C-alpha cells in the first residue's frame, strides 16, 4: 500500500502552474454581480424608506425599560441624528475588518508552518501565502471606510466628549484619551498594516527565490522571519481588536477581547484556506493534495471552532456570573434586543454545534463535500460574529441584516477571491524546492 502510494505520487507532475481560467473568472464575476445587485437594491431601499425608522424606534420603546435606561448612559446624543448612510458606513467597516483578518490569517498560517517545521503543509503552502496579496487592498478598504465613517462608528472620536466644559463630556471616555485619540489610533493602524505587509513581503520574496535556488538556506531565513512575524502578529492583532472592534463600545472592555477576535479571524481564515484548496482541487490542481492533507485542514477547522467557543464562552460566562452592570450591558444590548438576540444563537450554532458535530469523525474530515459545507458555515458564522461585535454598538436599534449587508459581503468575497486567484497564477502552485516537500507528498495519517 505504501509502495502504491509512492508510485502514485511520482506519477504526478509536481510542478503545477495555476491558470486563472475564464470559467473561474466567470463564477467570481457572477458572485460580484449578484452582490452588486443586492447591494444596490439594499441601498436604494434604505435611502428611499426613511419612514420605517420612526416605526423602528417606536418598537424600541416596548423593548423593556431597563434596556433604554442603560443604553442612554452609552449613547451620547451629541446631535448626530441617525442617517441612513450610517448603516452603510458600519457595513463597510465590518467587512473591511473581517476581510483584513482573513488576509493576515493566511500569512499567519504560512508563518506557523515554518516556525513549527511542519512538513505536511508544504504542498499547499502557496495557497495561504497568496492570501497576503490581498493585504494592500484590504488596507485601502479599511483606511477608506475608517476615514469615511469613523465619526459615526466610534463615538470617542467626537472631541467634545473629552472636553470637560462640554455637555457631552464623558469622564470615563476622557480617561482613555491617552490611547483613544485619532493620531495615535491612525498611526497604530498604519504601523500594524505596514508591519504585516513587510513580513509578508519578505516571506513571499524568500519563498519565490527558493523556487529558483533550491537548498535549505531560504527555509532557515523564512523560519526567522516567520517567528518574528508571529510575535508581531500576537501583539498587533490583539491591539487591533481593541482598536477596531472593542473601542466601538467605548465604556465596555474585556480582557479576553484580543484572543476572541484572533480566534474568530483564525478559524474563518482556516476555513477559507480549506475552501481555496478544495476549489483548486476541483479545478484539477493540487493533485498531490490527498485526503490526508484535507484531514489535517479539517482538524484545524474543528479544533479552532472549539477554541473560539471556549474563548467566547469564557468571556460570556464571567460577565454573566459576575453580573456587573457596566459589563453585562454588552450582552444586554445583544441578547435582549429583538434584532440581534436571535443572531447570538445562530452564531453559536454555525460556529460551534454544527462544525463540532459535523467534523467530529475522521471520515467527515476526509470528505471534500462535508468539509466544504462546514467551511461555508464557519465563514458565514464568523462574519456574523463580527456583525454582532460591530453593529449593535454603532447602529443600536437601526441595525439590520438585509440585502445591503449580504450584498456587500458578496462584493468583498468576489474581490478577495479575484485578487487571490491572480496572486496564485503569478507563482508556481507548488513550491518545488521546499525542503519538506517530499514529507508532504508522502504525508499519511
Amino acid at each position: 500500500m505504501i509502495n502504491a502510494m509512492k508510485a502514485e505520487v511520482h506519477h504526478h507532475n509536481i510542478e503545477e502552474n495555476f491558470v486563472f481560467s475564464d470559467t473561474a473568472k466567470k463564477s467570481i464575476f457572477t458572485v460580484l454581480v449578484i452582490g452588486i445587485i443586492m447591494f444596490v437594491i439594499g441601498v436604494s431601499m434604505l435611502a428611499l424608506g426613511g419612514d420605517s425608522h420612526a416605526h423602528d424606534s417606536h418598537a424600541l420603546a416596548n423593548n423593556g425599560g431597563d434596556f433604554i435606561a442603560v443604553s442612554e448612559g452609552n449613547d451620547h446624543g451629541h446631535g448626530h441624528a441617525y442617517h441612513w448612510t450610517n448603516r452603510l458606513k458600519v457595513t463597510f467597516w465590518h467587512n473591511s475588518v473581517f476581510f483584513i483578518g482573513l488576509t493576515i490569517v493566511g500569512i499567519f498560517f504560512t508563518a506557523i508552518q515554518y516556525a513549527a517545521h511542519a512538513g505536511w503543509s508544504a504542498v499547499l503552502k502557496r495557497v495561504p501565502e497568496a492570501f497576503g496579496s490581498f493585504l494592500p487592498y484590504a488596507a485601502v478598504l479599511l483606511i477608506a471606510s475608517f476615514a469615511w465613517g469613523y465619526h459615526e462608528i466610534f463615538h470617542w472620536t467626537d472631541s467634545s466628549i473629552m472636553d470637560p466644559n462640554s455637555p457631552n463630556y464623558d469622564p470615563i471616555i476622557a480617561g482613555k484619551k491617552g490611547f483613544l485619540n485619532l493620531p495615535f489610533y491612525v498611526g497604530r493602524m498604519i504601523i500594524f498594516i505596514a508591519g504585516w505587509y513587510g513580513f509578508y513581503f519578505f516571506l513571499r520574496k524568500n519563498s519565490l527565490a527558493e523556487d529558483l535556488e533550491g537548498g535549505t538556506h531560504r527555509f532557515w531565513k523564512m523560519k526567522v522571519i516567520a517567528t518574528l512575524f508571529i510575535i508581531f502578529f500576537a501583539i498587533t492583532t490583539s491591539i487591533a481588536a481593541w482598536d477596531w472592534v472593542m473601542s466601538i463600545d467605548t465604556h465596555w472592555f474585556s480582557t479576553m477581547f484580543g484572543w476572541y477576535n484572533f480566534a474568530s479571524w483564525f478559524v474563518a481564515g482556516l476555513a477559507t484556506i480549506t475552501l481555496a484548496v478544495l476549489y483548486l482541487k476541483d479545478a484539477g490542481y493540487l493533485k498531490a493534495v490527498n485526503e490526508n492533507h484535507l484531514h489535517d485542514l479539517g482538524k484545524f477547522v474543528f479544533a479552532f471552532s472549539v477554541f473560539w467557543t471556549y474563548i467566547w464562552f469564557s468571556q460570556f460566562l464571567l460577565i454573566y456570573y459576575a453580573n456587573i452592570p457596566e459589563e453585562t450591558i454588552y450582552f444586554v444590548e445583544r441578547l435582549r434586543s429583538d434584532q440581534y438576540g436571535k443572531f447570538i444563537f445562530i452564531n453559536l450554532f454555525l460556529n460551534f454545534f454544527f462544525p463540532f458535530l459535523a467534523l467530529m469523525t475522521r471520515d467527515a474530515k476526509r470528505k471534500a463535500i462535508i468539509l466544504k459545507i462546514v467551511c461555508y458555515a464557519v465563514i458565514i458564522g464568523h462574519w456574523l460574529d463580527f456583525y454582532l461585535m460591530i453593529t449593535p454598538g454603532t447602529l443600536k436599534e437601526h441595525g439590520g441584516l438585509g440585502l445591503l449587508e449580504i450584498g456587500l459581503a458578496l462584493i468583498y468575497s468576489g474581490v478577495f477571491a479575484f485578487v487571490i486567484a491572480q496572486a496564485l497564477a503569478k507563482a508556481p502552485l507548488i513550491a518545488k524546492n521546499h525542503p519538506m516537500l517530499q514529507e508532504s507528498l508522502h504525508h499519511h495519517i
Partner: protein
Amino acid sequence: MAMEKDKHYLIGVFSDHDDLLHGIEDMRDKGVKIHEVYSPYPVHGLEHALGYKRSWMPKAAFGFGALGTTLAITMQVSMMAIDWPMIIGGKSYLAVPDFVPVSFEMTVLLAAFGMVGTFLVTRDLKPYKVPRIFDIRATDDKHIVAVDLAANKLSEEQISSLFKEAHAEEVYRRDFADEEKSPSFISYMVDLFTNGVTRSSRISTHR
C-alpha cells in the same frame, strides 16, 4: 497438558521496519495469516499492513462522553432546580450557562476514564496477566512477527521460506506447552491479601 492445547508458532525477526511492513504485505498476499507483531516502537502503517479494521474505540469514547454530559446535566438540574432550588447570584434556578463548565468537565472525565477502562478490558491488560513472550528482543531493537502454525494451511517450511523472502533476519519455531495460566481474579486477590505483592514484574527467562 494435552497436546492439542500446545501452541506452535513460527517467529520471524526483523530489524528494519520498512522490511517488516513490506514483508508483512507480501506474506499476507501469499495467504499467510499473521498472529501478531511485536515492535519496540509504534510503526506507522503497521495496522494497514496487517489489514486491521478501524477501531471502534472512538465510538466508545463518544458514548462515554455523551454519558458524562447527560449525567452532569441531570445532576445539576436535579440539584439546582428540583431537589433544593436556590437562587445564586440573582440567577434563575435553571441557570444553563452555569452548568456548562461542569458538564464539560464531566464529559471529559467520563470519556477519559471510559477509554482507559475499555482499553484495559478489551486488550486484557490486567496486572496479574501472565504474558506469552515470543521474543524478549521485541522490547529492545527487533520487530517480532508471530505466525500461528495451526491457523495456517501452509506448511512450516513454506512459511519459513516466505519469511526468508521477506528479508527476515532470523526464523525459528517456538512451542508453548504447559504454559502458566493467568490466575483468576479471585485467586489473584486472595494471593494479594495473603502474600502481598509477589507477582510483580516477572522476569522472563526466554531468549
